[in-house]
Each structure stands twice: as structure tokens, then as C-alpha cells.
């Protein structure tokens, strides 16, 4: 049983809550969008002039062709002695004066067309520049904003969403801006000029045309506004379809292993059907706008023909009222009729361009809403370092002395559950502390509080007796080395990656850091040494090698505090022991925090912290903990004996 449209719509509709968020965001971001447009002001002015010229010359053409018909073909340029025109009659021979008018106006038409080509082509270029530059700025701004995200902000936006935002959504906006400066300017100008021409020719016909076109335009706008909701739904439906594909691709082994192909196909076909129905309704309604425009053109032209007929006869009969309507000109002829019908046609096409602009606006608006979510995301970590004073420099950590005072922490999405704490802890300068515990016991969350990757919910974290919030970002980043659990190398070379820790580091320094991280030997074995290319994510080196390079990258900073979050898990025992020994001998004054799965890696630490469910269940040296902490003992036993 397939769902009805109503059911589908209910499923895909977005809530009023989303709508209010979008509304609030709109107010905040409008300035940003305008600010990005400002630097293109010269081009915009240029574009405006080009369009002015272009529109005028283009609209001259129907006027000229009207004059050509009247003065040339109908012979009003060559009046005979009685004041009668001498029209070009079939086989009537060439009347030189009338023919001159034909040459004149025909020539002018061709010249106007040529000027219009140049203006328009130039305008196309300028509008391409405006829109591309505009979106470049917007994209750079979004990227910067995304880079400013704190760790908890990042989790709200999957990377795939952000990258599609930078390409697709920005592209939608670019397209709208392009159409706005190209079509929006021009067609509104054309509409105004057209009405000016029509009213100057015959205001009665103008009065007929005006309401008709406005009526048609408003109907079109109403349709477009109404379909907007449906287009939003279409987007949701597309997302659903894509998610199905993604799931199937990611989980293909499971799908095949459990023989669930038909099940998945059914699921996919259902979402696909939803997409199909919603798109049909949205697109077909949108398609009606073109039909309405055509109807308006035809009806308007028909009315102009009929009314023009009246005008012609009545002005011919010297009817005064008709003459007034025809702006005092006694004559209403075929030439004028052709001008009026041409302008009516131009007018309606201009309106259809404008309505398609509204269409593009709808698409751009949906994209803008998505971008607004990013631009308005509140960054929850802000830096307000204390003023520099005699005994406090916010840009440097004086020592690696860390204190936790009743610190507790919970993640924003789960405020009720404490991820850590409350914990009080004192780590002296130069000490090495190990942290062990099961997955989800809060090890990483705890250490993330030190360099302010997250902020403590309660209590305070002190470094060298000052709250971490008093320091500047520079101090926290330059003087604290962090090796994260999920660590990455970036496209480049080994050298460029190590230099992340210290810009312009010399080869000597790099080798020293590699030596400490026990990475020197294998880098030396690479044919290109430090210039060995690294691909995205560091997939070209093995897991253990990657971890060691990441350690070297942090060590080269010569940090006061070094945090290693499960960062030797892929190395063998020998290597990880060697790294620890290097730390002990070469980084004497550095406070080192080691998170590990293996008891073995933290055995020799000055202190070992045992965490369970976010709270401290043991603190001390290995030998003490074996005695006093049951969890520690258990972990040790499991790892010795196996399950």
C-alpha cells in the first residue's frame, strides 16, 4: 500500500519550531550577506549603467520597427500634396522617400541591436564577476566560521553537510545573485520602460495592460510562495533517499550477509516514491507559471488588437475622446498597433523572468537558511584573557602545574549526566600522570578541559595557579601539546606535518622531535626522508607510524604540558616503552599526561588515575593501586591473562 500525498507531506514537513529559528537567524545574518556584497560596489554600478544602456537600446527596437512600419511601409514619411501618406503597395514600385524611411529605421534597428549585443555581453561578464566574487567571500566567511567552531559545535554539523554547504548551497546563492544583478535589474527596468512607452502611446491601452500583467504576476508569485514549502519537503525527501543509499553502501556487507537486499530495496522504493510524489507536485505547480504567463500575453495582445481597432477607427473618424486617449495624436495605425503588441509581449516575458527570479530566490533562501544555521551557531568557548600584569602573562604558561578543583563536566546534549567529576587533582610540574579506565569512563573528557577544548561545567581548572580561562588561546595552544585519540596527518610531506607544531622548524629540530617520538628510524628508512609525501588522514603510513609522527608533531612545540590520549595504542610494547623513556629523559620539565588502555603503558608514571563512570576510583602509584583499587587490579588481571 502506497502512502497518500497527505501522509507523505505530514512526514516530510518541517516544524514550526524550525521556522521560528530560521526567522530569528535571518535577522542576524542579513548584515553579513550585505557586507559581502560591498566590495563589489564598482562592478555593481558599472553593471547598472550597462543594463540601463542595454534595456534602452533593446526597447528602442520595437519602437523603431513601429516607426518603420508607419513612416516607411505605410508611407507617412512621404505625404503627397493632399497630406495623404503613400504606402508601399504590392507591386507599386519604390517610393524613394518612403524607402528612405525604411532604410533609416531598419539601419537604426541594426545599430541598436549591435550596441545591445555589446552592452549585454559586457553585462554578462560583469554580472559573472559580481556573483562569483560575492560567493567567494561568503564561502571564505562560512569556512572561517566553521573553523572557529569549538569541539562541541563541531558535533552539531557533520563534515559532509558543511562541504555540501560550501559547494551546493553557496552555488544556489551565487546563482540567485547572478540572476538578480542580471535579470532582476534589467527586467524591472524593462517593465518600467515598457509601461512608459505604452502609456506614452495610448494610455487607455496602458490601463488595460497594467492590471492584467499585475494580476498574472501576483498569481505567479502566490504559486511560487506556496510551492516553497513543497520544495523544502523535496529537499528532505532527497536527503532521505540519499541516506538510504548511504546506508546501503556503508553497510553492504551486512546487507549481503543477512540477505536483506529485497528488504532494503523495498525501503528505498518507499522513500523514492515519496520523493517522486512531492517533486511532482512541486514541479508541476511551478510549471503552471509559464502557462499563466503565456495566457496573459495572448489575452493582452488580443485585447490590444480589439481596442487598437477601436482606436484606429475612432481616431480616423476624428473622435476627440479617442484622440485624448491616444495622447493627442490623431493617428492610430498598424505601426502603433505593432509597437503596442510588441511591448505587451516584452512586458509579459519580463514578468516571467522576474517570476523565475522569485523561483531562484526560493531555492537560494532554503540554502541560506542552512548557511544561517552555521553562521548563527553560538560558539560556546570564548576567549577573554586577563590583562597582562607584572606577575601574570596571559600569553605564556609559567609552569606545567595543573590543578583540578572540584571539576565536573557534562556534554551539552546530555546535561543531566555528568561525564566527569567532580574531581580534584593536583599535578606538579614535570610529573607524569597516567589515566586508565574503561571506554566512556571520561578519560578524554577530563584532559580536554586542560587546553580548553571543552569548558568545565563546574569547578575550575588551574594552570600555574591561574584559571585556564584567564589565558589567551596562544598560551593554551603553544604551551600545551595535545595528541588526540583520533589523530590525523594532513596532505603534504612529513616535514610539513611536523612543522604544524612549530612553523619554520629546522630539520635538526624536526629530527630531534622524531627521535623523541621513536620515529627517527623509520623516517630515515623512507627514500625521501622528511619529504616523503603524506596523503589525507595519513593513510599512507601504518597506524603505529602515524601515531609516532603525531607525537613528534606535538613534541616539537617544546610544550610545558603534553597530553597523550591513547596515542601509542597501535605501537608495540617495546616502542611505547621507548617513547616513555625518551619523555622521562628528554622532557624533564614537561608535565605529561598519558591516557592508555594498557596498564603496561602507565605502569611507571608518577601517579596513576583510575576513572570509572567519570569519577575517580583510584589515585597513586602502580604498586599501591594493585593493592588498593579493585578496578585497577581487575584491569591488570584481564590484560595479563586474557578473557
Amino acid at each position, binding site marked *: 500500500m502506497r502512502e497518500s500525498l497527505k501522509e507523505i507531506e505530514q512526514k516530510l514537513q518541517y516544524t514550526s519550531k524550525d521556522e521560528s529559528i530560521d526567522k530569528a537567524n535571518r535577522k542576524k545574518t542579513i548584515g553579513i550577506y550585505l557586507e559581502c556584497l560591498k566590495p563589489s560596489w564598482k562592478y555593481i554600478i558599472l553593471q547598472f549603467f550597462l543594463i540601463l544602456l542595454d534595456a534602452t537600446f533593446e526597447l528602442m527596437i520595437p519602437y523603431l*520597427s513601429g516607426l518603420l512600419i508607419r513612416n516607411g511601409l505605410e508611407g507617412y514619411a512621404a505625404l503627397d500634396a493632399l497630406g495623404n501618406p503613400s504606402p508601399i503597395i504590392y507591386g507599386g514600385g519604390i517610393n524613394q522617400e518612403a524607402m528612405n524611411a525604411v532604410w533609416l529605421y531598419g539601419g537604426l534597428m541594426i545599430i541598436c541591436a549591435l550596441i545591445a549585443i555589446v552592452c*549585454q555581453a559586457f553585462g554578462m561578464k560583469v554580472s559573472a564577476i559580481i556573483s562569483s566574487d560575492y560567493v567567494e567571500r561568503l564561502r571564505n566567511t562560512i569556512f572561517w566560521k566553521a573553523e572557529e567552531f569549538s569541539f562541541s559545535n563541531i558535533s552539531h554539523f*557533520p563534515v559532509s553537510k558543511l562541504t555540501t554547504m560550501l559547494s551546493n548551497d553557496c552555488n544556489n546563492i551565487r546563482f540567485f545573485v547572478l540572476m538578480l544583478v542580471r535579470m532582476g535589474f534589467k527586467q524591472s527596468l524593462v517593465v518600467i520602460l515598457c509601461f512608459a512607452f505604452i502609456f506614452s502611446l495610448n494610455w487607455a491601452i496602458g490601463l488595460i495592460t497594467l492590471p492584467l500583467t499585475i494580476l498574472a504576476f501576483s498569481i505567479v508569485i502566490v504559486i511560487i510562495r506556496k510551492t516553497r514549502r513543497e520544495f523544502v519537503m523535496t529537499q528532505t525527501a532527497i536527503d532521505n533517499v540519499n541516506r538510504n543509499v548511504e546506508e546501503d553502501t556503508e553497510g553492504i556487507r551486512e546487507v549481503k550477509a*543477512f540477505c536483506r537486499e529485497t528488504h*532494503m530495496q523495498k525501503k528505498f522504493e518507499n522513500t523514492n516514491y515519496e520523493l517522486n510524489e512531492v517533486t511532482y507536485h512541486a514541479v508541476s505547480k511551478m*510549471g503552471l507559471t509559464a502557462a499563466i504567463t503565456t495566457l496573459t500575453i495572448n489575452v493582452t495582445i488580443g485585447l490590444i488588437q480589439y481596442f487598437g481597432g477601436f482606436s484606429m477607427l475612432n481616431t480616423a473618424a476624428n473622435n476627440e475622446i479617442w484622440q485624448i486617449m491616444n495622447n493627442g495624436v490623431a493617428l492610430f495605425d498598424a505601426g502603433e498597433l505593432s509597437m503596442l503588441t510588441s511591448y505587451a509581449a516584452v512586458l509579459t516575458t519580463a514578468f516571467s523572468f522576474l517570476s523565475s527570479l522569485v523561483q531562484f530566490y526560493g531555492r537560494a533562501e532554503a540554502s541560506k537558511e542552512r548557511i544561517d544555521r552555521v553562521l548563527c551557531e553560538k560558539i560556546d568557548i570564548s576567549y577573554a584573557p586577563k590583562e597582562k600584569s607584572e606577575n601574570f602573562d596571559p600569553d605564556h604558561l609559567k609552569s606545567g602545574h595543573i590543578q583540578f578543583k572540584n571539576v565536573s563536566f557534562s556534554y551539552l546534549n546530555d546535561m543531566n549526566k555528568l561525564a566527569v567529576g567532580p574531581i580534584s587533582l593536583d599535578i606538579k610540574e614535570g610529573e607524569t600522570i597516567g589515566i586508565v579506565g574503561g571506554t566512556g569512563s571520561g578519560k578524554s573528557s577530563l584532559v580536554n578541559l586542560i587546553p580548553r577544548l571543552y569548558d568545565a561545567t563546574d569547578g575550575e581548572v588551574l594552570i600555574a595557579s591561574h584559571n585556564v580561562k584567564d589565558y589567551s588561546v596562544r598560551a593554551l595552544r603553544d604551551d600545551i601539546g595535545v595528541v588526540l585519540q583520533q589523530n590525523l596527518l594532513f596532505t603534504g610531506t612529513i616535514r610539513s606535518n611536523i612543522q604544524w607544531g612549530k612553523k619554520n622548524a629546522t630539520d635538526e629540530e624536526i629530527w630531534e622531535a622524531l627521535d623523541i617520538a621513536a620515529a627517527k628510524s623509520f623516517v630515515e628508512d623512507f627514500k625521501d626522508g622528511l619529504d616523503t609525501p603524506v596523503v589525507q588522514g595519513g593513510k599512507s603510513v601504518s597506524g603505529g607510524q602515524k601515531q609516532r609522527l603525531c607525537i613528534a608533531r606535538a613534541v616539537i612545540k617544546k610544550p610545558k604540558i603534553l597530553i597523550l590520549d591513547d596515542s601509542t595504542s597501535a605501537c608495540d610494547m617495546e616502542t611505547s616503552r621507548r617513547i616513555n623513556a625518551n619523555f622521562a629523559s628528554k622532557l624533564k620539565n614537561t608535565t605529561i599526561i598519558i591516557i592508555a588502555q594498557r596498564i603496561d603503558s602507565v605502569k611507571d608514571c608518577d601517579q596513576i588515575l583510575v576513572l570509572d563512570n567519570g569519577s575517580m576510583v583510584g589515585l597513586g602509584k602502580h604498586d599501591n593501586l594493585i593493592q588498593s583499587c579493585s578496578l585497577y587490579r581487575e584491569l591488570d588481571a584481564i590484560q595479563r591473562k586474557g578473557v
Partner: protein
Amino acid sequence: MKFYKYQGFKVSGSGPILNDVQIQFSCGKENYQEITQTYGKRKKGYGKPKHSWKALARVFHYVSPDKFKVLAVFFVTIVMIFINLVGAFISAPLVDALLQPAVYSVTGNWLIGGNYLGYQQQVIQDQMFFYQYLFNTVNWAQGGIEAANEALNTLGIVISIMMVFYILAFLFSCLQVFLMTRIGTSSLFRLRNDMFAKLQSLPLRYFDNTSHGDIMSRFTNDVDAMAQFFNTGLMEVFTSTIMLIGILVFIFILNWLLAIVALVMESISVMIVIINVKRSVSAFSETQVSMGEFNGVAEEVLSGLKVVKCFSKEQDMSDLFKSIDYRHTMHNRRSVFLSSVNVPIVNNINNLTTGLVTIIGAILVATGFSSQYGFVVSIGSLISFITFLRMLSRPFNSISNMMTMIQSSLAGAERIFQMMDIEPELSLNKAKWRSYKAEDNNFYWTDGVTTKPVLGQVDMQHVYFSYEKGQEILKDITLYAHPGQKIALVGSTGAGKTTITNLLTRFYDIDSGQILIDGINIQDIDRVSMRRSMTLVLQDTHLFTGTIYDNIRYGHLKATDADCERAAKIACADEFIRKLPNGYNTVIDGANTSLSQGQKQLLSIARCATFNPPILILDEATSSVDTRTERLISHGMDNIMKGKTTFIIAHRLSTIRYCDCIMVMDHGKIIERGTHDQLLEEKGRYYDLWMGKVELD
């Protein structure tokens, strides 16, 4: 005055901060050059897309089920366009046969022909028949205002009839829109369904060799390009083509000499358009490539944002991004310009043509030659000829606009059909053996004649296998597992452990040797039956959108809620599931789930517990579960494994300690085999691993 000193707005670097957002401008040309020096220009690999029109023909294959609708649309469009063309044409006879004579009649001054008879002879006679007809509806002999009023009445009647036709045309075009959209969307619907079905039938080799981003992009970007074509392009092209043909027919009937003049002029614009489309397509693909580049950088930086932040590299990365964005913008400017410059050319060459045709037409009419070429013998008919020329610009415009779009959708179609043309997994309908689950909940093999229970005896005999020809992954693997045995596979990444499971599940087929299950060669077993007799728990467990129940039930669709809960309890997943906001009814949202990798693995174990098949494959099934939890579930696992042949792959040696047989693999070979104690005694590779001397990677 301040304004006088105004230097303009800042263009490069960064702008003001608004609402916590720092505006970033372009990096500017100079910075771009500087940055490219630091980071090196990224390579330019702009492939030119090749478009085969074959792809288009195949696209229409998806339209064909709607052939009656297509026929209807064809009919409707022709009628609609005919009405519109007649509407445009009608002004000529109206002017020539009614209005002009009426004016002469009112003024009493027949400028042409002297009187109405002369007028008829000079203007009406050589025209098409309905000139004559219209002219004769009025009794011109009565002269003066009466004749004029009569003419006006006829005019009113004709225009009213036309109005009716216009409304009819409107209804028809609405009908056309509905039909056409229906055709478009349902063709896409069929295409997507087909693509998905095809995707699922593809061998695992495809998924392993193709990046998932690429597969996704075929479903999103390429189908999107096709969707544009189907949803708007198809109708536009269809209508425009018919309209173009219609107009050409009309103007050739009207006067073929003038029509040829017009055609020559228009073909100039067509030529310019074709050249332009070629250039703009290559510019477009440049833009796409550079867009891919900044997407790549953005993806790399944003997915490594945590690292970027730890090293305060935000500014550097932003500079890098800006430089690539700058280059993209330069390409973009060019491609946008090229793709749009057609419109003014087409439009204005049309205007030019109008001017030219009028002049030539006027001469032709005046000299009396025009009747040799057709019907343009009066001002009125010249006007309607010009009107047609003006109308000609619309289909030309939209077709030239569509060209770029069609090109990109063709590129999309090509990529789609590339995927559709890949050989699917061999269908095994003819396979001899099938399995079924009997009412006693046991599995049986049957080849239609004999039936025997599925025991789970697995033999691999001298198996050789390579993913790519020439690079053997498995060499001469011989192993056997008796029913109920636990076999462990140990070795570094690339040693071939996972490959063995890939062969057992027949995700891949072996090169030589044979694999037997209960003595039956797996080549003779129906693939679905094969897979039904075993269960797989993977390292990267994948959950599907749906509730927890749905996900556990994935293993066995008939499982009741109670079954699922029981399975979850065995897998130690019950505890955390109950802590979730909606317990077992919590909806998991595919990728964005907040479950940890370890929790996912527990669910996957529960999933396998519902099904209970005779063979079990655990590929790093508990790698993300911490050692303590692993120990907790080990009891449950023992329950699940009881009586089943189990293959266990594990990184953590503690996991496999109690297996019946441990195989140590290296470079596609089994180098050691035996129980834990035996292997320790051997003091070989396993001993080194166990003692932590060698790195397992």
C-alpha cells in the same frame, strides 16, 4: 568632504565582525601567488568529459513505460503551439482585411486601390483564403462608418474566438505541464529504483574498490543533473523544438525567400552558440574540478578540525582555502560568462534579422516580386512575418540555454550507466544446493533429492586468491573446522584474515582450490542459502535507520520483541539500551547516531544472537569494546557460540586465548597453527606477539 576622500571598500583580507562572524574577503591575487608558493600549486588535471549520445538513448528507455503519456503530450503540445502560432499570425489578416479597409472606409479615402474593389484586388486577392473570407464578412459597399462598425464586429468575433482558443491553449499547456512532470518524475523514479537494485546486486569488489563518496555522488550529483533534465529540460527542449519547427513551417509558407534570409542569419547565431557551448563545457568542467579541490581541502580541514585547533592552524588553513577558492572563482567567472553569453547573441542577432528582413521585405513588396516566393504581399503580412521572427528567439534561446545543462546531464547519465553496466554478482538460481530452516529450528541442506542437516563443517583446500590479478593475497590455504569448533585467525593487517571471511561468505570467489561446507562445494550452493547459514559480526558495525528493535531484528525479520530483548541480554546490550531515552524504541539515525562504536558492536552481536545459524564469523567483533565489558559479554558469547563453528579474528590476543585452534597468518600464508599453549611452547611468531615484542599492525 569626507566622501571625496573615500577610497572604496576593502576587497581582500578580512572584513568587519558582525554578530560574532568575521567576514572574510578574497585572498587577492598577490596573496594567492604567495600562498601557492608555500603550498605548491595543486595539480591541474582537467579531464574533458566525453559525451556519448548513446547515454541519452538509454535515458529514454526509462521514459518508454509512459509512452501513452508521451503520445498525449506530443498531441497536446502540437495543438497548444499551433494555437499560439495562429494567434501570432492572426494580426496580419485582421489588419489587412478588416482594420485598414475600415479606416479607409471611415475617411472615405481608399489610399490603396482607390475603392474597396481595388483594395480587394491589390491586397486581398493573392493572400491566403481567409483574408478573402474576413474581407467578405463586411459589406464594404455601404461605406463610411457603418462598414467600419461591421468590421469592428467581425474583429470582436474573431478575437473572442481567439480568446476561447487561448484559454483552450492554456488548459492544454497546464495538461502538458502535469503530464510532462509526471513523465519526468516517474522516469527518475524508475531510474533510481533500477540504480539501487543494481547497486545492491554488485559484487563486494565494487564497493571495496570504489570510494563511497563516488557511489553517493552518482546517486546525488549525477541523478540531480538528470533530474534537472527530466523535470525542466525535457519539457523545455520538447516544447522549443516543436515550436521551432512550427515557426519555421509558418514562415516558409508565408514567404520562403524571406525565410531563407532569416534562416541564414539565425544559423550564424547557432554556429556561435555551438562554438560557445564547447568552450563553456570545458570551462564548466574546470570549475567542477576546482570545486572538487576546495571541497577536498574543506573536508580535510573540517574533519581534522580538532587537530587544527590544537595547533592553532586556523589562519593558515583559512589562507589555504582562500587561495583555492580564489582559483575556483577565477574559473567560475569564466564559465559563468561563457555559458550565458549565448543569450544576448541569439536575442540580438534576431533583432538584427528583423531589421534586415523588414528592409528586404519592403523592397520585395514594393517591386511586386514577393508573390513568387509566398504570401507576403502586404504590410500586414510583413508584420506577422516579423512577429514570427521575434517568436523564433524564444525556442532558440531556451535551446541554447539548455545545451550546457544537457551536456552536464549527459555527463551524469554516462556516469550512471557506467555503474549500471558493471557485471552483477553471478546469479546462482541454478545452484544445486539450498538451505532452509525447518520447523524444528534447525537448518537443512537440500538439492531436491537428498536432505541433510547443516552441521557447519568447513574445509578450505589449497585455496589461492587474489583481489587483483598477479597479487596473490592468499596462498595455498588449507584449513578445516569441525562442527562446533572455534578457530582464531591472527596476523597483521594485510595478512589475509578478513579475506578468508570474504571467501567463506562468498563476497569474493576463489581463484583455485576449493571450499566445502558439510562436504558440499560452496560453488554449488545458492548464494542466499549460503549466507543464510552463517552470521557475520564486523569491526565497523553498521546500523540502519530505525528503532533498536528493527536493528536487532535485522538478523531475523521474524524475531519478536521478546526475542530481540533476549538477544540483547545475551550480548550485554540490554543495560545501555534501557538507559536510552526511549529504550528499545529509540530511533537510530543511520550515521548520526550517538551510540559509541562499542555499543554498536554489542548491538551487532545481539543481532547475530537472534538468528542463530550454524556458522559464526566474528571479524574484530569486540575490538571497540573495552576489556572489562568484553569479559562481561564473553559469557553471552560462549552461549551464542555453543555448538557452532566459529571463526574469530581479533587484534587483541586475550580475546582468542581459549580457541580450539589459532592460526597465525602472515602474507597470505598460515605460518603457525595450534592451541594457545602449543603456540607459546613453539616460541615462534605467536609467542613474540603474546609477549608484546612485535607490533601487530
